[in-house]
Structures are given as structure tokens and as C-alpha cells.
């Protein structure tokens, strides 16, 4: 494992995250490792390590966190967050880091494609005539193809 270079630390990064209503309080982490011990993704893929993410965060290693692919392996299962003895909102924090990585254009193709679909049609799958015929056959109600109002709402002014 590579050594951590503290020259890369970005104190402003930690400051901004720690004052956020949604995800503040991560400085309470005392490195017990409960998060990683219970993580199902870690068991399948040892490189993925929520404790390491938390330490990188506390050390302000912004670039490494947001440019790497580690955060995108989180399955959003909330096991670490529910298990954390200090109540650190680990999963919510990792999700926020994914948002920040997106701003840096570090986002898996599948995730960005879903985002585009939603902004274009308001849902992931279009329900076309073909689908509605299938639905009708099963006695299920008709649904519109897409939701235009959702598109209008997501459009940045």
C-alpha cells in the first residue's frame, strides 16, 4: 500500500464537509474499523475499504478521494453507517463524495447515463405502447411514456 502524503491535504475540503447539515461529525471516527469489518463489498473486493475513505477524509486527501474509483464501489447498503459506534453517517458521506467526484467528471458511465435519462424523460424506463399493451393484457393500468414536468423541474435555469 502506498504511503499517505500529507502535503496533498486540503484543509478547506474538510471544513466544508464538516459544517454540512447532512454529513457533519465525521471527525468523531476513532478508527475502530467496524465499518470495514461489516462491509459486504469489502469482503468481495479487498481494495474497497470504508475506513480508509474515512481516514482519507479526515486527512483532507481531496484529490485522491475524488479522482479515484474507490468511492464508486460503495453499494449504498448503509451497513457501516448503522454499525458505527460514533454515529458517523458514513454512507451519506460517501454519497456526498460521489456528488463531488461527479463535479470533477469522475463518474461511472452507467451512473451518468441514468442521470441523463432522468433529466430527459423523468424516469429511467420509458413506458411505450408496447409496454402499455403488455400491461393492459395483465389488467394493469395505462401509464404515460414520460414525465415532462420532472424534466422542467430538473432543468437548471
Amino acid at each position, binding site marked *: 500500500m502506498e504511503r499517505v502524503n500529507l502535503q496533498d491535504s486540503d484543509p478547506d475540503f474538510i471544513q466544508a464537509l464538516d459544517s454540512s*447539515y*447532512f454529513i457533519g461529525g465525521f471527525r468523531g471516527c476513532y478508527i475502530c474499523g467496524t465499518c470495514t469489518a461489516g462491509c*459486504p*463489498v469489502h*469482503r*468481495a*473486493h479487498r481494495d*474497497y475499504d470504508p475506513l480508509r475513505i474515512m481516514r482519507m477524509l479526515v486527512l483532507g486527501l481531496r484529490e485522491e478521494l475524488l479522482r479515484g*474509483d474507490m468511492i*464508486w*464501489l*460503495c*453499494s*449504498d*447498503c*448503509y*451497513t457501516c*453507517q*448503522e454499525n458505527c459506534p460514533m454515529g458517523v*453517517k458514513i*454512507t*451519506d458521506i460517501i*454519497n*456526498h463524495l*460521489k*456528488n463531488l467526484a*461527479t463535479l470533477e467528471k469522475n*463518474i*461511472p458511465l*452507467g*451512473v*451518468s447515463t*441514468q*442521470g441523463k435519462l*432522468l*433529466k430527459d424523460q*423523468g*424516469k*429511467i*424506463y420509458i*413506458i411505450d405502447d408496447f*409496454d402499455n399493451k*403488455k*400491461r393492459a393484457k*395483465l*389488467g*394493469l*393500468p*395505462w*401509464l*404515460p411514456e414520460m*414525465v415532462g*414536468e*420532472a424534466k*422542467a*423541474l*430538473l432543468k437548471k*435555469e
Partner: protein
Amino acid sequence: MKYSLFLGCTIPARSRNYELSARAIASRLDLEFIDIEDFSCCGFPLEASDEMGAILLGARNLCLAEEKGLDVCALCSACASMLTKTAYHLNGDERLREQVNKELSRIGKEYKGIIKVKHFARIVLEDIGLERIKEEIKRDLSGLKVATHYGCHYLKPSYIYEGFDDPQEPLTLEQILEAVGVTNIQYRRKKECCGGPVLLSDEDVALTVAQEKLRYVKKAGADCMNLVCPFCSLMFDANQKGIEAKFESAFTIPVLYLPQIIGLAMGLSRKELGLNLNVVSTRELESTLEVY
């Protein structure tokens, strides 16, 4: 009881067996669903890349239900979680609410915070009640050994769910199954994730996570799995063949949605419950239970 039915994206397009069976049992248990055609995606798939966009989508959906004066029933656990989380944050954070309402005003909407969101299984337990379900039981399922997969967002993050069930020791889905007469089977890693959300960033990792659970379900001798989320179903049912090939193993475990199992106990047919739409065949299980 009346609820607006929130289908989300995946269920009406890909998991019609879930929708069909939920509607089928609801209509027999005095639970009336009102369809709101204009519901969009819940916002969950946007959460990783655009948290604010996700909350906006969630808030708009809540507004539509508020206009009808109806609480929301979500079938998908990710939808239930996203909509509950949206309401939680909007109700607790004045500044966020103002910001969101400013955006909503562009489409003539305002979030008021007057309705509740519940997962379908929670409605079965809290609104319909187990006693009411027991009155409708027509088929003996005591020979059916079921491994329940709770999944993640049905119960987590727990801070949004006001103490409903306990993610460390979940019970609710098995309480329902006990009432309908099946035999609940315990297995290792019961509480764990299906791996689904990782599918978009690393398929190998996602399938490895799902495979681990299937292995323990098989080892415990379950006849089928029980779940309440279309993403979990995608991993265990739709992807089961692929997982078998990738890991050179054989599972052949039918994966049923909770209302399909409840419906079986209520004496409903294969077609009424959409069992013909399940990917892993449920035929053997049906013939044992004499389902036609």
C-alpha cells in the same frame, strides 16, 4: 384504507409480477390503491450524482400525493427510502425546504409536509394487520421453507424510519410470513445487501456479493427467497443464471416477492400473482403446493 401507489421506474417496466401480486392481494384486503399517472422517478438514481436533483424529484412526487390528500405506498425499497428521506429532510430543515419550494414554484408546486410515505410491507403489517390476513388464508404453506432477504433501503438509513423495525435484528417481513403460515428459514448473511447498486460501477463485485447470499440461502435448504425490492429481485432472480455460470455453481432458487407468497397463502392462482413472470421457474414449488 386508501393510498396513492408509487410504482417508480423499474416495477411497471420490469417487475410486473410484483405490481400484479401487490394489487391482487391489496384489493382483497381492503387496501385501495389510487394511481397517479404523473409520478416520476423517485429520485434515487440521481442521489449519487446530484443530491439536490434527487430531492427535487422526490419533493415533486410528494406534492402530487399531497394534492390528492393521500399517503404514499411504495413497492420498491429504494423509492420508499428516497421519498421518506426527502420528507425527513424537508420537514426538519427550514432552509432546505425554502430552497426546494422556490424551485418547485417554477412548476406551480409547493411542498407542505402533510403526508406520510410507507413501504408496502409496512402497510401490510401496520394498516392491514396480521389478524386480517389470517382471515383470508386458504392454502397451507407450512411445508414451504422461505429465506427472507430484507435488503437495505426497506429499513435503512434507520434515522429516517422513526424506529420501524430494527436493521440490526429485522423481524417485520418474517412476522408477516409467520402469519401466513410459511416456515421461516435462517441463513448466514441474512441482513446483507444484494450488491445491486454496484452493478453500474463494477459488475464483478456486484455479482460476487449476490453470489455469497445465494450460496448461504441454498446451504440453509430454503425452497425460495422472499423479498420486497425490484433491484434485489434483479440480482437474485434475473441474474441467478448468470451468477451460476460465472461461479460454476447451481442454485435454482425461486425468488418471490412478499405479496406473491401472501397471495399463495390466500389461495390465488399462478396468473393472478404473476408467477409466470418470475425468471427462475416456480413450477416445482407450485406443484408441491397444488397451485393452479
